[in-house]
């Protein structure tokens, strides 16, 4: 069996960890600076969309209307969307149509 066990989910602050390595050894003086994580309470996907997201929704809706036939449209209007989470879901749906990206490669299931 060569597959590694899946990493346990980290509790606490919800922030994507930067996937970068630290300074190469051949460099000169390196100053390491610790960056604090935001608290877990900072995450609030039920926050009402602010003015920027509201504008983005209007632009996405504009593009949806221009690009998709009526029967394939989501049907929601920007003013129907009440939270950042709902906005993200709608924005992702239309963005996938405008800019399909490759699906993420899934880890193979663990063998016995």
């Amino acid at each position: 069996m060569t597959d590694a066990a899946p990493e346990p989910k980290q509790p606490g602050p919800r922030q994507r960890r930067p996937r970068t390595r630290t300074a190469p050894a051949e460099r000169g003086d390196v100053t390491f600076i610790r960056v604090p994580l935001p608290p877990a309470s900072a995450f609030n996907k039920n926050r009402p969309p602010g003015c920027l997201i509201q504008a983005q929704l209007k632009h996405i809706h504009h593009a949806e209307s221009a690009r998709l036939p009526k029967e394939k449209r989501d049907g929601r209007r920007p003013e129907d969307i009440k939270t950042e989470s709902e906005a993200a879901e709608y924005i992702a749906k239309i963005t996938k149509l405008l800019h399909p990206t490759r699906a993420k490669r899934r880890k193979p299931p663990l063998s016995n």
Partner: protein
Amino acid sequence: MPPGLDALKHIVVLMMENRSFDHMLGSLKAVNPQIDGVDGTQWNPDTQGNQVFVQPLAEFQSQLDPDPDHAFPAVDQQIFNGDQSNPRVASMKGFVQNYFQQQQDLAHSQKIMYYFTQQQLPVLTSLATNFAVFNRWFASIPGPTLCNRAFAHYGTSFGQVGMNVFYPQGKSIYERLQDAGHTAKLYYFDQQSSSLEVVNLLQHQPALFATYDQFLADCKSGTLSDYSFIEPNYSDHDNDDGEQLASDQHPDHNVQAGELFIASVYNAIQANATLWASTALLVVYDEHGGIFDHIAPPACTPDGYSAGPADTQLSYTFNFDRLGVRVPAVLISPWIPKGTVVGTDRVFEHASIPNTVTNHFIGPYPAATPREQAAQTFLDLLSLDTMRTDSVVFNT
């Protein structure tokens, strides 16, 4: 050509959201008096005529809620404080009174004067003090996000002063580069956050786009485009990787999450030695978000457009002849002398971005607006004869 410019193969721009220079970097005046920040003497009157002084009491979240108004009429009040004389005086004295209008709460309105300490923002302030910080980088328009971001993409907003859908009448910097045989990418965070350039570019030229994961991969593999523009995460949401915290720093999103994102972009470039030696990274904010700054925006070269009262929601026509409020801007490269402070005699704005990128990769571009052609370029700051070997690394 200076060796740093000769080595320069990549320009990366990270544009954050809605914070003023004084709010984010004003505290650095205490570290270096050349940095034109705050010293506690700057003030605004509140609605009862009291002087409200700047204070280092900014918080990462929940303090600027509701989101301070930064539409065109609100910014006009923040800058001119209702002055209708001719010519008007840009006193920068209307921030508190403007914020008061949103909640009619005197104490709350005073929070628009708060700024962060250096210790609260270790990423942005470290980059500012280790590389080059601009004393005079202004938003392009005294207005909101989308028209200001348009200046970074097109060198003009085509007469827009708001957030409406618009259609460009000129080529974006990405199209210019492609036409000239160069490469360019706009990286948005993920599909849930997407891009703010939906109508003009994402819809019609999706090949220009990639997600932030791809940016990290491109840095690691050394396949970054000549020019990259990065958009932060605009919302709290779930994706396949779990919960994603907004990193744009737009009020009321968490400022620390934005610090982590800036660190992530920087670390990705810095970790690849070849890329680090050949890249300039600009971290800049699109506009001030209604938050106090003490420097009056200067006049600028008009771009040939005008916005009438129906658009400005004021009694006058705006001829795009004055910049918006000052914003934080930091240029990062190992070819920049440590602790560079770009003087008050050099004025930059977002049209400086396409002008700089065009000049470096293509050369003269007569089709650019007069405004863009007049905008200062910034690559002369890569002035060292020998690349620095010291560096900063953020542990996140």
